[in-house]
């Protein structure tokens, strides 16, 4: 059932992003929203769909810095994790946490990663190309390791710590009552959906704003952009922070769903997250408005189908790796090549993609 919803959503989003007549696209958009709102009625567990929306929203964050600005950041997992930890510290009721309601805490789960990203960005955004990519990869690892080793932080003059991250033990959120679970799952789904919808809307606004044009000018040619009067450093840092904010919000939501944070590899700082957001944008189209949504739908539909075929066993990442390789060889610009590029999907286009960059 989930697979059917994902594929249906994918077809509708492809129409919305495509070049059909305006009325058709509007109709598809309405249908897409209808499907998204009605999906919880069709599926036994809306949380699996919430995961898709969270991944999509995190990818929107990457798209701002990696897609629009052209700085291939490989450490987005750090901001996902920081958003998650911020949320946990604010919501939990143990020592060194604040017991706030989740709704109040959520904006801060975007703000804190954004501030940290701005600080990191001032340094790493001076690097370019491979060096920037690997520096951000390192930031991802370093942040995880730091959080993994910090228990409580405070000032000597205060009686209680400012915040506690629980070191390797992580933070456990207060459990839900059994009666709350179903309603809460629904809330989570709509919150994730809202985040993805809001993120996509933000991308659409960014796409036609002066700020967005500035970012794309930097991507095209940074020196030329600077000469044209764009303050490249400020633009880049803002883009990096904005991307971190969205990814952080997604992480904060993920932690509410998980009910705990652990700094462990397999948890909130999972380095795979850094690559997932890139992959999603690559599938849908790097630097496009609809790319993250389309990419998330494709990626999770493929995973859902693979799980159906192979179970959740060890073979899944094997096929996943093969999928990535085939995608990058045959469709390096993602599905946008068929939506905005105007061409029909034919074998010939795939062949031309493959041979275009051959040495």
């Amino acid at each position: 059932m989930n697979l059917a919803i994902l594929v249906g959503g994918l077809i509708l989003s492809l129409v919305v992003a495509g070049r059909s007549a305006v009325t058709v696209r509007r109709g598809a958009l309405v249908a897409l929203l209808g499907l998204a709102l009605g999906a919880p009625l069709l599926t036994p567990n809306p949380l699996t769909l919430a995961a898709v929306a969270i991944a999509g929203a995190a990818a929107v964050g990457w798209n701002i810095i990696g897609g629009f600005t052209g700085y291939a950041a490989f450490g987005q997992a750090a901001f996902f994790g920081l958003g998650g930890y911020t949320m946990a510290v604010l919501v939990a009721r143990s020592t060194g946490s604040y017991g706030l309601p989740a709704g109040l805490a959520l904006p801060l789960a975007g703000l804190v990663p954004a501030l940290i990203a701005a600080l990191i960005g001032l340094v790493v955004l001076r690097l370019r190309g491979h060096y920037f990519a690997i520096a951000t990869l390192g930031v991802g690892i370093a942040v995880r390791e730091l959080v993994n080793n910090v228990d409580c932080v405070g000032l000597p003059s205060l009686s209680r710590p400012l915040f506690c991250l629980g070191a390797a033990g992580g933070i456990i959120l207060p459990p839900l009552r059994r009666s709350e679970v179903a309603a809460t799952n629904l809330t989570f789904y709509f919150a994730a959906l809202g985040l993805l919808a809001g993120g996509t809307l933000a991308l659409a606004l960014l796409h036609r704003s002066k700020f967005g044009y500035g970012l794309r000018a930097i991507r095209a040619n940074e020196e030329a952009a600077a000469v044209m009067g764009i303050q490249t450093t400020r633009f880049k840092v803002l883009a990096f922070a904005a991307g971190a904010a969205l990814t952080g919000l997604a992480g904060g939501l993920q932690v509410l769903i998980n009910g705990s944070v652990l700094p462990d590899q397999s948890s909130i700082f999972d380095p795979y997250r850094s690559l997932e957001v890139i992959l999603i944008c690559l599938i849908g189209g790097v630097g496009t408005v609809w790319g993250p949504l389309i990419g998330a739908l494709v990626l999770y539909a493929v995973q859902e189908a693979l799980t159906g075929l192979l179970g959740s066993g060890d073979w899944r990442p094997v096929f996943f790796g093969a999928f990535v390789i085939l995608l990058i060889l045959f469709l390096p610009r993602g599905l946008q090549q068929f939506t905005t590029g105007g061409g029909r999907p034919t074998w010939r286009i795939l062949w031309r993609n493959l041979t275009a960059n051959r040495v």
Partner: protein
Amino acid sequence: MSLQVVVNGLLLGGMLGLVGLGFSLVWGILNIVNLAHSALIMGGAYLTFYLFDRLQLDPFLSLPISMAVLFAAGYALQAGVINWVMRAPLLVTFVLTFGFETLFTSLARVLFTGDGRAVTPAYNAAALLVGDTVINVMKLGAFGVALALTAGLGAFMRYTRTGNAIRAVGMDADAARLMGIDVARIYALTYALSAMVAGAAGSLLAMWYSFTPDSFGIYNIRAFAVVVLGGLGSVPGALLGGVVFGLLDQTIASATIGGFQLGALKEALIFLALVAVLVVRPNGLLGKEGYR
């Protein structure tokens, strides 16, 4: 810093230099940050393990085998696949090599299982005692091999026609093509050499640590650190970077501040140092463009 820390750092540094050497070669000549490098190292490690486990072949004797196998595999990978995306933007080659890393690592998880493996020949624990400094004989041997391979590759690049062709392609692929060099073949050869060195590093690391398919991902970051510290595009630089990294690593691992083990933050601290270096010298400490 005790003498023991220095010795450990040097031994580890020689190994890390070897890890970084192949990475530096592909980056310098092909302009690809090869995320599949760790998977190639893994290949060497498992070859050595199975040759030792099934055929009781001494790990040092399995070195040439794993080098030959990885050379062939690397050539096939570059000629068959990566050559098709050589003109594509950075993100494409980055994600492609990531795809190979995922594919190989997950395949290894299926085929070799996630069980910890170790290569333990009889002389495994033999050690020299110099004063009160302990030097593990096997690690010393691995260090010697690492030095020899580094010197050998440096000589190959400098004194053979093929080596010079590789360097020429690294400086300017178009000009090299005009001089009659088959650039696609040189790319394949360069990747094959890099894979060969990675295979050797894997075989040696198999003696050093016990491992699972997931133990190797960290070597991409380490290789990168080595290249940045030593400078992209220099064979001796890779060795220097490895030694600097090794000493840094061992110093941090053995240090405590107010009872707190700094080793827990090792990767973060090394990376902070690295980013600092990058910001001051964006092309590395001894860095220049291309491979010399």
